[in-house]
């Protein structure tokens, strides 16, 4: 089985899991009394946000290792992770305001968590634009690695912004030093969703990596034909 086929299968399993998450969240998970049904947006928003941050950390780590090892596989992985991270960031930045309108009474507010997450999205877009703008593969990988490392440095700041600043954004209720403050039925739905988003990340990154690999091979063949 080729790499792209493996990626497709993982993505398919992830989509089936996500469909099951939809059914579980919408039909079998209790409605929160104070926030109402809008609280269920949390089951998509938070796993997508975690993988948006994790994808940028992985882009940065791949960038650090690339600068030392000059291994093109690391650069390809960083590119794939950044593209999938951009998609997850789009989900975070659309589901967040949809939750904010009924709960806060406003679609958007310029508080630390929201603004820094928007900045991360622009970093992702900038990263992909940079890769498209530089033609030399070695130079492109080096510039992208540096930008990826900058993005990685932003992630802890985003995650801790709810503690560092006075912010409207809720404090963590799962990833915190004490035990998660969620009933078990809600926690199970959230964990199931996290598994689905993890599989989605792995499946999409595998496919995107295979695509980069094929494009590099194609460019190698065409440059060989040009020299002949």
């Amino acid at each position, binding site marked *: 089985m080729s790499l792209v086929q493996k990626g497709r299968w993982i993505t398919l399993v992830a989509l089936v899991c*996500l469909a099951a998450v939809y059914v579980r969240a919408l039909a079998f998970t209790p409605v929160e009394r104070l926030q109402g049904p*809008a609280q*269920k947006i949390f089951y*998509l928003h938070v796993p997508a946000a975690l993988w948006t941050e994790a994808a940028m950390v992985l882009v940065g780590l791949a960038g650090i290792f690339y600068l030392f090892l000059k291994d093109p596989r690391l650069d390809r992985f960083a590119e794939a992770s950044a593209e999938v991270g951009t998609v997850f960031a789009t*989900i975070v930045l659309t*589901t967040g305001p949809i939750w904010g*309108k009924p709960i806060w009474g406003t679609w958007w507010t310029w508080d630390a968590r929201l603004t820094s997450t928007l900045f991360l999205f622009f970093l992702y877009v900038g990263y992909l634009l940079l890769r498209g703008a530089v033609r030399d593969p070695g130079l492109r990988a080096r510039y992208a690695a540096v930008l990826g490392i900058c993005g990685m440095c932003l992630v802890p700041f985003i995650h801790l912004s709810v503690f560092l600043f006075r912010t409207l954004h809720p404090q963590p209720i799962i990833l915190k030093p004490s035990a998660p403050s969620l009933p078990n039925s809600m926690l199970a739905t959230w964990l199931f969703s996290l598994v689905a988003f993890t599989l989605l990340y792995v499946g*999409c990154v595998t496919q*995107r990596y295979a695509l980069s690999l094929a494009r590099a091979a194609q460019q190698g063949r065409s440059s060989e034909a040009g020299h002949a």
Partner: protein
Amino acid sequence: MPDVPQNAGYMMAAYIVTAIILIAYVVSLYRRTRNL
């Protein structure tokens, strides 16, 4: 005890938007990798 807020429309909108974004990306990946 306060009434539960009636905001299911926002929930449905978020779930639909997420599905659209994910399916659009998965289809775009499929189209780009189709000829590999």
